[in-house]
């Protein structure tokens, strides 16, 4: 009975839990890289240098601040682009990893049988490089 219970959970509630874990891990990565936020603020000044002091400043200072902010926007865009790229790559890798994890999860209870089959087949990998 226990074996039946194990299999019915493994391919029922167990799969749901496995997917939930993987989705939670994805969600954590998405939060970590905050790609949505990066897109929204792609060209915003980086760390708001001199923000909020332009209203009553003389023209020369305003011009200087404008260029400061322009530089800040470039730095911000550069940084964000880098993180967006790294984030997308990481998430893609994680997604592939998750799909593989699901596959391994589904196969795991049959690994002893597969092992026996492979033993009968008799193939062993060649370790010579």
């Amino acid at each position, binding site marked *: *009975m*226990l074996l039946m*219970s*194990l299999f019915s*959970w*493994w391919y029922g*509630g*167990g799969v749901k*839990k496995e997917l939930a874990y993987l989705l939670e891990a994805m*969600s*954590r990565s998405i*939060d*970590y*890289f*905050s790609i949505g*936020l*990066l897109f929204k*603020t792609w060209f*915003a*000044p*980086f*760390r*708001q*240098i*001199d*923000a*909020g*002091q332009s209203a009553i400043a003389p023209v020369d200072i305003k011009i200087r601040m404008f260029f400061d902010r322009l530089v800040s926007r470039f730095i*911000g865009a550069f*940084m*964000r682009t880098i*993180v967006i790229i790294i984030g997308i790559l990481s998430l893609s890798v994680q997604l592939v990893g998750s799909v593989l994890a699901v596959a391994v999860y589904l196969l*795991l*209870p049959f*690994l*002893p*049988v*597969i*092992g*026996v089959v*492979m*033993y009968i*087949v*008799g*193939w*062993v*990998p060649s*370790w010579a490089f």
Partner: protein
Amino acid sequence: MGVLSFNYGSERAAKARFAAKLDKFARMLLGLTAVALVLAGLGLLYLGSALGWVAVGLAAVPVVLLVWYRRELHRLDVDHPDSDAIDELISSSVLGRLPRDPSPKDIALAVGQVQSGQFLAVRFGMGARFLQEIAADSHEHADEVWKNAINIRNALGVQVISGGILALAILQTLPQHEELLARLQLDMDDLMDGVKWFDHIYMMIETMKKPMHTGGIARDWSFGFTPLLNRFGRNLSLSLSAGRRMSADIPTHEQVVSQVIDTFSTGGRQGVALVGAAGVGKTTIVQALAERLLDASSKVPSNLKFRQVFLLDSAAIISAAPGRGEVEELVNQVLIEAYSAKNVILCLDNAHLFFEEGIGSVDLSNLLLPILEAGNVRMILTMDEQRLLEIGQRNPGLVNALNRINVQPADQAETMAAMEDAVIVLESQHKVYYMYQALKEAYRLSQRYIYDLAMPGQAIKLLEMAASHADDKFVTAESVEKAIEQTTGVKVGVASVGDEKEKLLNLEDLIHQRMINQVRAVEVVSDALRRARTGVRNQDRPIGTFLFLGPTGVGKTELAKALAEVYFNGEDNIVRVDLNQFVSIDDVANLTADGADNPASLTAQVMKHPFSVVLLDEIEKAHPNVLTALLQVLDEGVLRDAKNREVSFKDCIVIATSNAGADRIREYIDRGYDITQFEDQFVNELIDSHQFKPEFLNRFDEIVLFRPLGKEELTQVADLIIAGVNKTLASQKVKVEVDPEAKALLVEAGYDPRLGARPMRRVVQRVVENQVAKMMLAGEAASGSVIVVTKENVERNLSKTNS
């Protein structure tokens, strides 16, 4: 609900038993086996043996079992909450430990082995052995346990029947369980609260295990740098990024957090004043706000999401800017930084430090007012009502620029919940365990004895104090009582120690060692104390309130002193107020003055000595308004001081003395009346002659008349005074003995029916003490000698003093 059944062979029960077998050691073994098989398999494959595949494949078996255990077996869900089968409802940890046909004793054994059962054992003192002893051994009684468990589960509104619920169910099978619990200072509601407490901790740990989504690495990139704020403030949000707070918010706090969010999310004034007494949890509310804003999953308006809360440190600012005007300049820069950063909420904790000049504080009203009025920077100011009123008096505009949110003290249920969370931290700090009874006692006693704080801080402070009185690492109700007794001197527990019991039973004899006669007065005072120390008295009034009436020198004040010495740990614990100094209407203020202004005020003294004899001497001389102010003391045992703090007199014996009608008492006695015969009539005469108002006299528990002392009693007084002289001389090993004839002479000389025992003391002083002093100076009384005072000595000394 139909007939309940326990199916040992059900799938859930089988799973639970299997899970019970997979204990820590078995799981570790499985893990090691999996690793060993994988390594062995890879090794064999490396060596060219296909048997390696079998080893690698077999490694999946322990892995599968471990995954199954972690994700399902360790805590089986209840899939059929309406089932009649009890095995579908019991927590898997207990279910896995039950035999085929369990008796209540078997259930108790299983409960004692699981965390929820052990939790009850620790928190309530109901150990596994206790449960097994009270549980029946017959299998038929199991049905009753199941039925009780279902009822408790329904009452608690939970799905799973935990070990804690089963412990309660077993207890309920005992017909005398209420009496049994009463002995542990508990009732069923407390135990049900304990079950909820365990579930709450479990849920909190589960929540804390889940990482909080806090916006990621780019969260703050669009906002400004905050080097000054980092230096002169504490970023609450940053500390929360490391992990959630180990506490759940009480409903009052959640409500206030929502109010703050509403205020900040709308336009208009962006300053919030959190107003509440110290201890209500204003800083905790700010932390809860910081957590809610930082949690991506919480429902917060987008313009507030991920905003960071900085707690500004006034001391750091003042120490960094010692020069005149430098503080203003520095705070101005900090404010500009907060404004520029765009994601900062500034919190001025104890905001009065920023609005008044003093040590550790600075008045920045002029700087902060325009910012608060403009609403450019979101700010939270925390302070108490009094401080807000003071600030408002000096600068009304400042208060108008703030959105005021009141923080009310927590009620009993909320305070208990807050304490249940707080003990988790306190236990790890002090390495002790808090019992539930300690929490209940802390709530009850802190209300009464911890001043200047509100709930829940009031109760938590007492819990912290009690940690140092832990008994064998357990903080019990007695530990809490000891903490109060040590800090306030009040005896809060019920008299149980042998010495104290003896003292209480023989109180009259002990008092009479320094009091002559006045039997009734001594008796009523002793009775009041006995009632107090056995918990029989009304807790919302003073221990006793007495009016002593009688001529001067008959022992009214002496009785108060004797009582303080015998029971209140010495004459120091007498709070004496001479009401002849309170004759004008303005003197009422002196009665309730703040201790800082007038340490001799009645409220200040009682605050310092809450367990004492309060002696209100010569009450007839006080202004009527003073007596009116004292009505509340006599009635409810409280008096509010100048700062509106409630000072408790509930652990005091209040004794008022008066000479009013002394001549009438003497007259009655001379006419041969016994005191009890004319007591009522005498009190009526006092009311008729307008010396006291009936509502004032009516407030006393007892009005006791003191009779004038006769010559026989005065002889006993002389003995007491001579005993006092001998006590003083004991250190010099000199003893005084007075001949009976000499004593009679002393009494004759010291007797004055109008002045009572006082002339007697003066005579002894003149005759006996003078003689001893002279003999000692002349070298006639060496150590170990006995000075005998004879009739002749007395006559000689008296004639000298008379001449």
